[in-house]
């Protein structure tokens, strides 16, 4: 580090921005990578079934698969609209 570097350390370097962006996108992609291929289709079909009874938006159904050593857990999260019975 040279003497004048002390005056220019305030701004983030482009390399550190690159690293942060990479850490976020790589973590996100690793999560989706481990999911089986049928998951998006399963989510779509579940959505259609629920829609026969309740009007919900696409983002109100979350399907997630968590893997443990011995078993996998399929987690289904449906947010129902408030004014429904």
């Amino acid at each position, binding site marked *: 580090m040279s*003497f004048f570097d002390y005056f220019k350390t305030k701004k983030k370097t482009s*390399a550190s921005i690159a690293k942060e962006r*990479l850490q976020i996108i*790589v973590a996100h992609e*690793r999560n989706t990578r481990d999911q089986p291929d049928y998951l998006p289709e399963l989510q779509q079909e579940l959505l259609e079934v629920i829609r026969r009874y309740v009007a919900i938006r696409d983002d109100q159904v979350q399907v997630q698969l968590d893997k443990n050593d011995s078993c996998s857990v399929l987690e289904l999260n449906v947010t129902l609209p408030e004014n429904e019975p």
Partner: protein
Amino acid sequence: MARIIVVTSGKGGVGKTTTSASISTGLAQKGYKTAVIDFDVGLRNLDLIMNCERRVVYDFVNVIQGEATLNQALIRDKRVNNLFILPASQTRDKEALTHEGVEKVLNEMSETFDYLVCDSPAGIEHGALMSLYFADEAIVVTNPEVSSVRDSDRILGILQSKSRRAERGDEPVKEHLLLTRYNHERVERGEMLSIEDVNDILSIPLLGVIPESQAVLNASNQGAPVILDEDTEAGQAYEDAVARLLGEERELRFLDTQKKGFLKRMFGG
């Protein structure tokens, strides 16, 4: 039984073919009978880098389809003993690399060779998947740059789920990171991802760091793998990488800042 090493990256233009040429040459120089196989059907270039483009008569697809024997298609390198090149087909369809066909050829080669180095095409399509499927080890070639690192991570995921070792539940493919086109000065200025940065993200063992060097283009211009250019940093860095691949411990070199004059140290740069 040959050890099968795939040289892969996902992204194009990061130095897969340059690396395949130098690693296979280095292994052959150490006395191992080595073949380097071009999996880039339709866009072969290994022959150019290895300076045997005018000696190609038969190719990988001819062997798969029984139109030529392996011995007819293999090209013996004129500079290094024990080194052979199996070129890709320039005219056929990528799908000509059938699973069974590739397996048959690799099995036959395994009987007489010590190392098979598979030069993967860019992307994650058929040719790339075929080149990594049978691998025992993978050299993931990465530039210190966002798109290359991301694609390398993707390729690592594929190695861990779609390779034969993964499908069979065998010991996983042994992964190596090879950082290429590394510019230490730019890293020091905060303009380029450092070795540690890339390591933090990909977290696989480092096989080597090849400094960005004019020697690489010079070598490919002449069709000589850069490892043969023993006076250059890039050539020596590849030699180190081959030694590490064979289990030797070697310190990383060429990562110190060049001797700077007093003014440069004062004013940076």
